[in-house]
């Protein structure tokens, strides 16, 4: 035997058309009274048996420190690793020699939501967000600048942990 092929035994004589029909009808009728599985989306965003994954990678969010400043130190790793080249970073430096981003823009249309920026960030500044409602009226609104990234409030996504692959 090469591979395990399951050979189905075909019925020699096809019995039951009437009974099979009635059985099917009974089944569909029974289903009419079963609880509905639909999630009534805009009103209801999660249910007892379903909620969005903690590892969901949605639109970004930039975390800030206690003073409300960006955690980003403009090291340039995220634009470097970004496979779709969607992060624009212009670094700046203040009088004390602290680096900070002058311009930090993410084009969410180019982004492929791989999450590398979050993985590579040494300061845990840039994060993917657990978020999916991104509608805007213009295309330009999809280039998120630093201010916008700061203003996001949705939860950040949890990175995949090799020691806990199923996220339990």
């Amino acid at each position, binding site marked *: 035997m090469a591979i395990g092929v399951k050979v189905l035994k*075909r019925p020699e*004589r096809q019995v039951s058309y*009437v009974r099979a*029909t009635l059985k099917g*009808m009974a089944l*569909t009728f029974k*289903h009419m009274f079963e609880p*509905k599985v*639909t999630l009534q989306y805009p009103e209801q965003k999660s249910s007892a048996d379903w909620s969005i994954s903690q590892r969901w990678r949605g639109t970004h969010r930039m975390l800030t420190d206690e003073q409300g400043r960006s955690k980003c130190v403009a090291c340039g790793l995220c634009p470097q690793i970004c496979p779709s080249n969607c992060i624009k970073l212009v670094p700046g430096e203040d009088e004390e020699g602290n680096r900070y981003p002058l311009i930090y823009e993410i084009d969410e249309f180019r982004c492929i939501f791989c999450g590398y920026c979050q993985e590579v960030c040494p300061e845990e500044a840039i994060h993917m967000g657990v978020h999916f409602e991104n509608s805007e009226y213009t295309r330009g609104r999809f280039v998120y600048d630093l201010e916008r990234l700061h203003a996001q409030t949705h939860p950040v996504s949890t990175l995949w942990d090799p020691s806990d692959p199923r996220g339990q």
Partner: protein
Amino acid sequence: MKGFLLLSILKMLFVFTVIMVGVALLTLLERKVSAWMQNRHGPNRVGWAGLLQPAADGLKNILKEETYPALATRTLFFLAPAMSFIPALLLSAVIPFAAPLPLDFDFALGQLGRFAWHGAMPMVVADLPIGFLFVLAISSLGVYGVALAGWSSNSKYALLGGLRASAQMISYEVAMGMSLIPVLLLSGNVSFGAIIRDQQAGLWYVLPLFLSFFIFLVSGFAETNRLPFDLPEAESELIAGYHTEYSAMKFSFFFIAEYANVVTVCAMVTTLFFGGWDIPGHWDEQGGVLQTLATGGFFFLKLMFWIFVVMWVRWTLPRFRYDQLMALGWKVLTPLALAYIIVMCVAIYLIEHVAGLTDPTLRSLALFGVNVVIGLLVFGLLDSGVFIRGADRRPAASEVVG
């Protein structure tokens, strides 16, 4: 005379409105039923519980652009939706929907003259003496709309759909027409009024003529191109069949026609086999406003039940293969209907003239006994797969002549 005209116009308006609104709501019901059977809610956004969904769909379809395929035969392409729509609506004119309403009025309206009516008004737009023959005649006209829609679109899918539709509708019409002959034998009349009166006197025809009912129902599914016989549409094979090239309101007209046909078939089933507006017992025969309203309501309930059954079947059974469809029509239902006519002729003759049972109830009960025997035989054979074969029924190796 003018009283008759006035009442006819009123009844026409009533039936037309009910049918059009009903058909619109049936599209919603269909989606709801399908949703419930799949553990979903169905449309529930527009209006309360989605009740305005048909209005939204209608509005959308009216506002949409109507397209014509470049090489379509424009006249026929334009006419085809109407040609399937008009026969479907015409049929609603002959179905009695309630007990006759006793009316008595006599008044003058200026220039128009006197309007008068005395006596019971039949609650049907046209109480035709030819009854279900009219329905059979007009319902077969619907095939023109479908076939011409398929042909005039100049598209291979539409053409195939139209061809399938015409072959299917013509095939099943034979069985459908012949399944009604036992009804004629039993009632001695083709008019719906007489058939309902006969069922009031005895039992509903579903008992003494069960196989007729079965054949009629199955052919009714095929005539209305509903699943499991929706091969003319067969979206997995033919995109949308005969109405592939249609858009906007012309597309909707095919749907209105389909649902109007469903209503007609269900109304026929109700009238011919389930007593029409008859409420069991003799209360409804007295005649009166209350009786008319109650019988109307009861007719509506029966009608809705059959419409539900049609939808229920649609969302349960898979589509037939085309050869199975033709085999079922020509090799099972047509011979069965023919044989049933003969058996019923003999049975009715024996019961009425040899056994001398003339009481309608007793006669119906005796026929019911005959039907139980035939029914067991037929359904046993159907169930064993002798008539229709599955795709996997290949000849065994020993049967193949080497």
